[in-house]
């Protein structure tokens, strides 16, 4: 399979992908391990909190975004990881029954000054629910290998 390399990401490009159905079971399983707060653990207890009902941990939503990114482009790319995340905004609660997808905007792309074999691509990701509302946004760069000489473009 042809891999996506640094050269395959064009600033201004917007693509949409992914489809995860959020379940109460998944929300609670993540929360029990990583974020055991009442509004992530139990429907009844959640009603008495600011959240007004069971909502996914923001870290769970970030994990679901990562999963959709892996399944839909990173794992058919020459990605070499990310040094960090500039910002995440949790805008709307994610609740059981929501269906999530991703809208990805390529903001900029530049070769790495320190590692000439790598390029740095800056993205904005929006996690959309079934109503098209952004529940979370995330801005970060991802490192990609540059296309080896002699390989044609993917796509």
């Amino acid at each position, binding site marked *: 399979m042809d891999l996506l390399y640094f050269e395959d990401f064009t600033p201004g490009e917007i693509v949409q992908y992914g489809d995860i159905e959020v379940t109460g079971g998944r929300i609670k399983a993540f929360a029990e*391990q*990583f*974020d*055991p*707060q*009442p*509004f992530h653990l139990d429907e009844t207890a959640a009603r008495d*909190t*600011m*959240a007004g009902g069971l909502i996914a*941990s*923001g*870290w769970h939503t*970030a*994990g*679901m975004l*990562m*999963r959709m990114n*892996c*399944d839909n482009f*990173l*794992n058919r790319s020459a*990605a*070499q*990881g*990310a*040094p*960090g*995340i*500039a*910002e*995440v*905004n*949790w*805008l709307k609660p994610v609740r059981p029954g929501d269906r999530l997808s991703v809208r990805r905007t390529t903001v900029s792309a530049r070769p790495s000054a320190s590692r000439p074999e790598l390029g740095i691509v800056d993205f904005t990701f929006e996690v959309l629910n079934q109503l098209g509302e952004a529940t979370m946004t995330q801005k970060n760069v991802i490192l990609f290998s540059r296309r080896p000489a002699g390989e044609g473009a993917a796509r």
Partner: protein
Amino acid sequence: MSLFYEDQRIGDTKALGAHTFTREGIIAFAVLYDPQPFHLSEEGGKASIYGSLIASGWHTASICMRLMIDGRDRARAARAALGEVLPQLGVSPGFRDMRWPAPVRAGDTIAYSSRVETVRETKRPQWGLVTARNIGVNQHGAEVFAFTSIVLWERRAG
């Protein structure tokens, strides 16, 4: 430990505890949330720029969250045992400037800590906003993780 917004003081630093990342834990997280080759197997790690299996940065972050909640719950239980009124739990609108400056590998023990950076009131009189810089340091003293959390804390009834 202080539990209301008014108790948060810039510069206050607390240890959150430590976690040892196992091969099994790293892979179990990656299978569900970050299935990239260098998080899934030793072979995948060797073929990457990291040279070995490494933990997902989101795993490193999620463990930090768990330690934060555990610490807060212990403090709340201690205050409740003294008969004190506990604040409502606040939510977080997001975070800023998360960094993974060095990999977390199987067997690494990461010690996390949190330092209050800013406090400010919000338009909602019940809630104040507190930012903190949270870091994780490995057993060799190298920083492997950092981020700035933004969390609402309930204010004391005025």
